[in-house]
């Protein structure tokens, strides 16, 4: 029996309690890894987005719309290559559902800005030439079982059809992105269909491509300066930052995640500390015997501390391992608005938290073990 084996034997002296505590810790670390894998994207932005693409939106709120006249002004800025615009339509395809991303776009320029999108040239030509045409991503086609040529009724709570009833679109084709995990693919239709709505003449936001990614900040500043002190001031940013801000409208994801994890780990501290303290009280006489046999105060304390660290670190390793497999397994299948990204730094943080947690919950029993007076402990037990 070596020291490590002795440590493990002591740790599992009350098997059920130790296993239950470890399962709780595994769950906590699994939760930590998964939630942090979501939060890390919201904190860092969608780093894989093409940073030669910028977004210009209203300075004060993304709900505020911008005049269509901005398009030419933006185009005139040095370094801007292509400009297009889009408007959030809030379309609902099936009664009772919350709706899917539905954009009113400029059909002639949209696919120039999103040049990586794959669309059949014939379908694109038909889309551009037909006012009632629409393009849908494969995911929506599958979700609703649509077929090309089908008429698609769409209800919009934001933009109701002035004639009453739903908007009807002709589904003329489909499109895809080479990297669907990082694309925000929407149901697309002609901006001209909005002619009868209050939003006509304005755009929700502009997307533009630039000639040099290194000039993103400079060009963003130049665009915003053009509209400074006007009634429609703008805020231009990279696409990844724009998506991050859009997602943040759901709430401060990072804050929510931090709140949840704080509550989880606070509970874990109490639970694990309780296990350690119970274990210590049950073993006072055993610790006194160890000291009697010649184990020093320090070595007995180290055993107690090591036991707590071992319990937390083994649990963390299992939680991190399972969490990593889950995150890597699902990250390619997550919808764009709920991205998840495996970040090795999260694992490092989990490891540090495990060490900190172990040290924290083990420190009190370890100090008590250090101070344990052999004669008193043997006499009391």
């Amino acid at each position: 029996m070596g020291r490590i084996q002795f440590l493990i034997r002591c740790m599992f002296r009350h098997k059920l309690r130790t296993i239950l505590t470890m399962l709780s810790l595994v769950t906590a670390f699994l939760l930590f890894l998964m939630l942090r894998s979501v939060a890390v994207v919201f904190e860092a932005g969608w780093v894989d987005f093409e940073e030669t693409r910028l977004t210009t939106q209203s300075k004060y709120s993304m709900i505020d719309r911008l005049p269509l006249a901005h398009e030419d002004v933006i185009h005139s800025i040095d370094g801007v290559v292509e400009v297009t615009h889009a408007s959030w339509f809030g379309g609902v395809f099936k009664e009772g559902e919350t709706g899917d991303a539905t954009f009113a776009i400029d059909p002639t320029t949209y696919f120039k800005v999103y040049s990586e999108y794959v669309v059949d040239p014939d379908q694109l030509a038909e889309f551009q030439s037909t006012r009632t045409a629409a393009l849908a991503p494969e995911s929506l086609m599958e979700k609703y079982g649509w077929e090309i040529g089908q008429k698609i009724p769409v209800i919009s709570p934001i933009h109701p059809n002035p004639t009453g009833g739903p908007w009807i679109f002709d589904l003329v084709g489909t499109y895809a992105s080479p990297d669907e995990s990082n694309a925000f693919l929407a149901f697309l239709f002609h901006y001209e269909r909005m002619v009868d709505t209050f939003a006509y003449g304005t755009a929700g936001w502009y997307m533009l491509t630039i000639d040099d990614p290194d000039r993103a900040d400079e060009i963003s500043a130049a665009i915003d300066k053009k509209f400074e002190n006007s009634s429609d001031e703008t805020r231009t940013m990279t696409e990844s930052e724009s998506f991050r801000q859009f997602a943040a409208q759901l709430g401060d994801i990072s804050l929510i995640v931090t709140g949840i994890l704080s509550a989880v780990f606070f509970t874990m501290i109490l639970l694990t500390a309780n296990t350690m303290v119970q274990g210590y009280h049950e073993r006072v006489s055993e610790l006194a015997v160890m000291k009697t046999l010649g184990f020093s105060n320090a070595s007995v304390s180290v055993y107690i501390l090591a036991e707590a660290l071992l319990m937390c670190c083994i649990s963390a390793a299992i939680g991190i391992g399972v969490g990593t497999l889950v995150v890597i397994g699902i990250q390619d299948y997550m919808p764009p608005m709920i991205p998840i990204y495996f970040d090795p730094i999260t694992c490092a943080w989990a490891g540090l938290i495990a060490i900190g947690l172990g040290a924290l919950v083990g420190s009190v029993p370890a100090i008590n073990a250090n101070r344990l007076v052999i004669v008193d402990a043997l006499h009391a037990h």
Partner: protein
Amino acid sequence: MSLVSLQSVSKTYTKGRERVDVLANLSLDIQENDFVALMGPSGSGKTTVLNLIGGLDHPTDGEVFVGGASLKSLSAGKLARWRSQNIGFVFQFYNLLPALTAQRNVELPLLLTKLKGKERKQNALTALDIVGLADRSRHRPSQLSGGQQQRVAIARAIVADPAILVCDEPTGDLDRTNAEEILDLLETLNRKHEKTIVMVTHDPKAAEHAKTTVYLDKGQLSVQEPSTSEN
């Protein structure tokens, strides 16, 4: 020269404002290879003497010498190391670790040595063999009888080959048959393996196994005499 020498030792415990004088100016010498039974009424200071000899406690006054060395000068850490090398402890209630098998309980003191795993295991099995429990090495304490547990405790006490065994009522929790077996074992360790044994007991029959019986009363040595069985 005596192996163990208590020189004018006093021990006072303080409980709140109350002072309890357990030992008062006690002097006692124990020769090498002696088997001493410490007897006396409850509260006479027997266990305190045992604790002082074993380096588990320090006297309020006076000095304890073991093997010619004063325990007073040793720091807590050095005293712990000294205990691991020089003293074997046997308790009334065995005090085995329930999570460990008999062999691993016996091996425990050897974790403090530089012996390799294989050597530790071999020494533990040898110690168990000496106490007649080699065939119970894989049993946990809960799977052993009281007498067997005390034998494991004795094996643990001798595994590091200490010169002195201190036994605090080693038969106090056993029936007569098991008690006699344990006392015979201690006697064997004293005679055959030349261990110096200091044993606290209330039982005159147990004391008959010792070479010397020391009577304590109110913290003072009242009588020190050869045991009746000694010749």
